[in-house]
């Protein structure tokens, strides 16, 4: 069921990313997403970047197209449509977790990491961004993470290059019992491979075309799975079993196109 929420806080996270906070009663688990509707514009899927016990839930939006640009310009007091939460969530039981996030992928992983930390798990974080001021939630992670490893494409902060370049060293020198990842799919493919090499179970949050979000329209088909319901979080074995992972996406018509 759709309802309307009022934006109570707008936080500029990076030049291209903004967090919108609002009061929304339905219980959400970290990893789940909502469909947010700007009346007169599009309705889009967004993973929750803040969930309970936070009094205000939140979504963190990166400017990609016209609709997210519209989101980026929203101000306090604006009302938006919302339905959900939908999908599955991260399993919080591992005791020593490595997060590997690229760009706005950190928005999906942050609430899960906080929840795991509250349960007593240790969390380390590898954060990648295009440039220093685009590193998302660095302070948020620093509050509880064992270690935060940084990388930027242009070398303005942390190691220069992709975040996946950090993995061989991190994974060989420390013991983890789970890797959680979200970001560009090529990054997740590489992260999955590195996790497998080190024998660490992998879980990744996927993004696909989203229309109904309630297991009906097949727009989010990923092999035999529906990302809206059986995802967005999949284990490494499932991801590796689907030919599309890192390679194909379906466009709005349902056509499989190179990712």
């Amino acid at each position, binding site marked *: *069921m*759709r309802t*309307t929420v009022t934006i109570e806080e707008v936080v500029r996270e990076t030049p291209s990313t903004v967090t919108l906070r609002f009061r929304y009663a339905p219980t959400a688990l970290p990893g789940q997403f909502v*469909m947010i*509707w700007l*009346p*007169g514009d*599009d*309705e*889009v899927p967004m993973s929750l970047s803040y969930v309970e016990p936070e009094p205000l839930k939140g979504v963190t939006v990166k400017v990609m197209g016209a609709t997210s640009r519209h989101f980026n310009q929203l101000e306090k007091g604006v*009302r938006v*449509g919302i*339905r959900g939460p939908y999908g599955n969530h991260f399993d919080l039981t591992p005791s020593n977790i490595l997060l590997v996030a690229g760009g706005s992928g950190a928005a999906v992983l942050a609430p899960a990491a906080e929840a795991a930390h509250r349960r007593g798990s240790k969390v380390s974080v590898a954060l990648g961004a295009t440039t220093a001021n685009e590193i998302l939630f660095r302070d948020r992670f620093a509050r509880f993470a064992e270690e935060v490893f940084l990388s930027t494409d242009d070398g303005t902060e942390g190691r220069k290059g992709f975040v996946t370049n950090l993995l061989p060293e991190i994974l060989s020198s420390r013991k983890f019992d789970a890797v959680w990842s979200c970001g560009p799919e090529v990054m997740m493919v590489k992260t999955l491979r590195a996790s497998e090499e080190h024998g660490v179970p992998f879980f990744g949050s996927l993004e696909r075309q*989203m*229309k*109904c979000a*309630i*297991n*009906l*329209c*097949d*727009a989010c*088909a990923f*092999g*035999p799975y*529906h990302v809206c*319901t059986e995802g967005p979080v999949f284990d490494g074995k499932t991801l590796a079993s689907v030919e599309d992972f890192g390679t194909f996406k*379906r*466009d*709005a*018509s*349902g*056509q*499989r196109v190179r990712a």
Partner: protein
Amino acid sequence: MDALTVKVAGVEFRNPFLLASGIWGESGASLHRAYVAGAGGVVTKSIGREPRTGYPNPTIERLDDWGLLNAMGLPNPGIKNYAEEVRFALSKGVKVVGSVFGGTPEEFALLSVEMEKLGVGSIELNLSCPHAKGYGSEIGADPELLSEVVRAVKKAVKVPVWAKLTPNTSDPALLAAAAESAGADAISAINTVRALAIDPVGMRPVLYHGLGGLSGPAIKPIGLAFIWQAYEKVRIPLVGIGGITTPEDAFEYLLAGATLLEVGTAVADSGGTVFHTLADGLREILKERGFGNVAEAVGAAHRK
């Protein structure tokens, strides 16, 4: 023969419950999955000539548990791209009914020929989508246009042709009769019922397209009435669609005159487990009420 096995226009289905068009049908893997979940067969998404993105979101609006409003706008990858999905499903042994939509009789015929070449066992003509300009019910609500389409397709293919009709008409029997006399091998009904949702906060329609189509339990009585009226008018088999959620719903559709049944909204809600629930439940009901098989129950309410 198993009590649930049904034959329509020479094509056999292991049970009467088919995946309705538009649900899960974008990928061959999902069609296969519905079949594995227990569907007697699957109807593809309605396919056109060219890729079509459909409408922007919101494309659906959930109305508690009694209904679902949608205006997807016939998104589909076009027949050429869709071929791989149909081939995948067929290679897994899935009973596939190919659904097509067009703007002219020629377009319907061309698409049906392509579907037939891919190997589908039957074709369903979408003459009833309530929210796509120039397509669906804009053609199918006019008995003459509907007849032209059915005739053109019948001339072009050998496999059975089902005409899927719209409830958004004052005279269901008239449309059913037109489809039959044009040569249709079966009639499927109903497509969704034209409907609207308004957002009272934003003071505008919720769906991007404005008008949409209602499905789910709310429309079961409308579907039953359509099947009832069509059964009194035509001799060809009827495929009942509209709000089928429980085995009792299915039994009622059989009594009203349907031979096959399509399930849509309930598939989404159950994640596909509904097919087993429906099949097991209907088997029980038929036995309990003294029917040896599905065919014996078809139209039984008319004989009281």
